[in-house]
């Protein structure tokens, strides 16, 4: 029996891609273990190519692991999980409201009702008034917010986010971070968040998971003991900077180039 307070429990997850031409195995994830409690905000950082996207896709069901097991807890009447993709990946042929309601339509809600139900989520991400615009009429930041609204609209217990703010400018990103914390706080969701920005991970999270270089494993699991609610000023405190440095050193050790660079 797994712990009732867990939202996600991954045991020994292994992913081996098979090369199409050589049929050689290519190990992207090696026995990854991870527990996330309900309501927790957990970030994953790690060198590029270490298997972060692979892991989140396995959790989402887009990929099947080669070995290992993942348990997801479903609470409430919404979905277990929903994914916010790195590229906004809105359907260009749908208006904003049809894009945001897409997840609902997928779970069998009638289109008209789905549209009505997605209106509050469009408001939540500050896009009211744009419901009937096509994606090409929205800025990159607006598209990314629509992407978030699309995932929130299916009311998932677990929100999976793969570098959702990577394409945003720094001001918009900070606004979105604050917004995300507000939504998370309000909606009582569990969040699994992938990022390359260490400050973003520290600012948002209860725990930051540092992954090793490929094949990916959990290298460190760092609890961020900064009290909430966190204002943006918290990023300038020594406590915050200490966390950043600790995580940065762990990642740097995983990148051979960075290692030799720091010694030179």
């Amino acid at each position, binding site marked *: 029996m797994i712990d009732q307070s867990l939202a996600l429990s991954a045991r020994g997850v292994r992913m081996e891609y098979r090369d199409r031409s050589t049929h050689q195995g290519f190990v992207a994830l090696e026995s990854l273990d991870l527990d996330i409690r309900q309501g927790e905000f957990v970030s994953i950082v790690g060198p590029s190519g270490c298997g972060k996207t692979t892991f989140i896709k396995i959790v*989402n*069901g*887009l990929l099947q692991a080669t070995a290992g097991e993942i348990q997801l807890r479903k609470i409430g009447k919404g979905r277990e999980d929903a994914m916010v*993709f790195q590229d906004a990946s809105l359907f260009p042929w749908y208006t904003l409201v049809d894009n945001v309601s*897409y*997840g609902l339509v997928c779970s069998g809600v009638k289109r008209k009702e789905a549209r009505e139900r997605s209106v509050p989520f469009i408001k939540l991400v500050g896009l009211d008034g744009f419901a009937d615009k*096509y994606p*090409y009429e929205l800025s990159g930041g607006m598209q990314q917010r629509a992407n978030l609204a699309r995932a929130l609209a299916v009311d998932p217990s677990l929100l999976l986010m793969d570098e959702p703010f990577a394409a945003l400018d720094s001001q918009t990103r900070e606004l979105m971070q604050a917004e995300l914390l507000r939504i998370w706080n309000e909606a009582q969701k569990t969040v699994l968040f992938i990022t390359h920005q260490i400050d973003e991970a520290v600012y948002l999270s209860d725990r930051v998971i540092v992954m090793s270089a490929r094949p990916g494993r959990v290298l460190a699991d760092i609890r961020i003991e900064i009290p909430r609610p966190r204002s943006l000023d918290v990023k300038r405190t020594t406590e915050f900077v200490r966390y950043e440095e600790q995580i940065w050193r762990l990642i740097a050790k995983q990148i051979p180039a960075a290692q030799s660079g720091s010694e030179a």
Partner: protein
Amino acid sequence: MTQASNLFPAAEAGFRTIRPRTRVKRSRVSRWYRRHERAVLGATGVIAFFLLWQVGAWVGVIDPFFFSSPLAVIAAGIGDVQTSVFWADTKVSFFELLIGSVLSLALAVPLGIVIGWYQRLTYAFDPWLNFFNALPRIAMLPLVILWVGLGVEMKIFIVFLGGFFSIIMPTVEGVRTVDRQFLDVARSFRASQRLLLTSIVVPATIPFIVTGIRLAVGRMLIGVIVAELFAQTEGLGVMIARAEAAMRSDQMMFGILIFTIAGILTTEAVGILERYFQRWRPSSEEVEEGM
């Protein structure tokens, strides 16, 4: 302005001044012209061509026996439309075109989507599609006549062949090149197979289908003429052939004109359809109009 150049004498030497667009007040005629420039110049080109042709025929530079003249073609047309045989021929030709194109569209689009969607079907059908697409369909004519005779069925079949392969090839291609990212989004939300098709595959493939239809219009028109010329039973192709036997270049030209107009109208209709289905795309024309 003069003040500015006094303040910055270097502007003369090393700077290029970029000024805002100045709005010149234009006369009504000039504004009207600028708005309709495209149509005006297009019409001018067409009219100039016909004028030169007519004048050439009058002066004797152009031999009316071979090339007729615009007025003669119009006269022939006026004569033709008063005969019942002309209307019978027109009806036959358009009936063949209509049935052939509806059949080819109704079969090529769903088949193309299914074949493109299932990789195994793509692999299995690819050689055949390529074979029939490369095959000069006109060369099939005698064979088709052997199968179904010289009647309307044969001509419909030729039209169908022209349309079907023109549409199915890009349709398959369109389905196969649907962006993976979109499919991932849909699967991530556990979209049903049906929703995957209607919400992603079809809208993403429509530009490809339209390309196919554009190609098909020309090929189906060629198909119907060649089939009619070959079968020599009835239709506008036969009308052209009869005019040829009577050495009436004006009548031949009138027949050709009707096919051309049919082609232009159909292409325009496809364009309207295309703009409707692709209103989610920023069109380059819209940007130009904004200027």
